């Protein structure tokens, strides 16, 4: 028995193991998939995420039932909070839903695979290097994929710029059109308050090879997080020029903006 399966048996209650078992994933004979997802690790990760989701951030998720139960899906959200906590919370919301749960895959920044232990652990719990080929292959595999089209621009933004959407890349729209993926916009409210940053130490980030080094509190604040899932959007695969693709991206961006505004107006307190 490996340490991983021992930890899984000791730490993960049977009910949570059953919940993960309800989600069908195409994995090999030893429990891995090509991106490093591991059936035992995901159960340990699910158990840890449950605590973070329910106890620490006390997440309220509205409309998670709108995510299609099968077929390729892109969950497109605003990025915030210096660490990829928003991806974790969106993933848990979908994996823990009562009716037809799914285990979505989050696309992560390119520097993670170079960090010892961290890269491997992220892969084992389902995160995947943010590469268009990876995303295309997963959509072809009928997976649900979480993408943040703002990328680093979104997660590294300062507290004064909170809830202002940065420029969206067009890559996700091309992939959705090509693979017939349903886009589900998601507005994340609350993650901006988890690690408020007042500045970015750019020279230090460059020296360390990191995307940014924020000036922030050295811990994560327990802000209350609201996840607003929007109505599914479907785009055809017409051969259209890039400016028309940008218009489609703007439609998704406007929808996310609307969801964020809804979340902010419904929010009663920060913590």
């Amino acid at each position: 028995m490996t340490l991983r399966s021992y930890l899984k048996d000791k730490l993960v209650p049977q009910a949570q193991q059953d919940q993960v078992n309800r989600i069908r994933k195409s994995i090999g004979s030893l429990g891995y998939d090509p991106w490093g997802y591991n059936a035992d690790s995901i159960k340990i990760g699910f158990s840890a995420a449950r605590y973070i989701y329910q106890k620490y951030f006390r997440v309220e998720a509205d409309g998670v039932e709108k995510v299609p139960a099968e077929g390729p899906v892109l969950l497109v959200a605003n990025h915030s909070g210096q660490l990829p906590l928003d991806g974790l919370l969106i993933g848990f919301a979908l994996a823990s839903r009562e009716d037809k749960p799914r285990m979505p895959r989050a696309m992560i920044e390119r520097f993670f695979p170079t960090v010892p232990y961290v890269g491997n652990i992220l892969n084992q719990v389902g995160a995947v290097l943010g590469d268009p080929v990876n995303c295309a292959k997963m959509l072809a595999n009928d997976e649900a994929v979480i993408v943040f089209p703002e990328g680093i621009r979104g997660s590294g933004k300062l507290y004064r710029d909170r809830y202002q959407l940065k420029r969206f890349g067009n890559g996700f729209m091309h992939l959705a059109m090509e693979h017939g993926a349903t886009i589900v916009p998601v507005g994340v409210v609350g993650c901006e308050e988890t690690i408020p940053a007042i500045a970015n130490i750019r020279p230090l980030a460059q020296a360390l090879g990191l995307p940014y080094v924020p000036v922030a509190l050295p811990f994560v604040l327990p802000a209350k997080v609201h996840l607003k899932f929007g109505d599914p959007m479907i785009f055809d695969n017409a051969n259209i020029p890039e400016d028309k693709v940008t218009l489609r991206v703007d439609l998704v961006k406007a929808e996310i903006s609307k969801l964020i505004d809804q979340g902010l107006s419904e929010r009663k307190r920060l913590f």
Partner: protein
Amino acid sequence: MANERKPHILITGAAGALAQQVINRLRNDYFLVAADFREQVYLGDDIPSYCIDFNKRVFEDLFRRYDFDGVIHLGRIMSSQENRMRRYNANVLGTQKMLDLSHKYGIKRVVILSTYHVYGANAYNPALIDEEAPLKGAGLSMDLIDSVELENLANIYLWRYPDLNITLLRPCNIVGPGVRNSISTLLASRRAPVLAGFSPIMQFIHIDDMADAIVLAYKKNQRGVFNVAPEDWVAYQHALLLCGCSRIPIPSIPPMLPRAIARLLNLKSFPPYLMHFFKYPVVIDGRAFQDTFEFKPKRPLKEVFRYYRENKQPV
């Protein structure tokens, strides 16, 4: 008819375990001639066997004498063997000579064994790399340049001389009884080095399945480049555990440290230029080959690892 001429095939790299498996599968239906640059192997009275350097003029005598219909080129020096110049001469120039002679003598079928190492191990590699992906192997390490050059050469001949019907196979790690490559040596050892904090996803194919794949590739006349890998995956360190190996962690940062350690210890199965393959995954997509050739590997990973667990230090 009793006197019907059997098709003649030249099989290179005959001293290797994989070539011998291929020979056993083909010997009843084909007239085989075996060649190897390392040693002359006895394969029975019905199979002429030669120890021959492909760059020497006498190599052409084989083509004159036997009137081959096809060539199965398995005689590639692996990246852990010999020195860089010798590998380049044998793998690139030797293959070019073989392809030139194949064209000159009107051969209709050529199967060449390459390796997934040509893709190169890189932190930014996506998973399920397909055949159209760029070959980054040469950029990372000059020690893999011969593998990439061999591929480029084969590709040039593939398009320039369509009559040769070249099929180029890029298999994942070939393992199993008799295999003497780096990864097989590691799985067979009692203690194997690992890079601390890195356990890349790997693919393994049993030598019997690979021999089946080569035979299928030869028999079905479909030219092109194909990855060969089963749809099953495992992390390197997990594979070592299943093979009953103890893991010896080597510090992985800064990147020059594990290279210096490997150079110092002179570990043949963990050479500095393959270090990235023990750090970053190179997961290839074998579906094109499976669909085109109706190939399905029969030996599961558990069976492969059981063999190594029960046979430490196998031949």
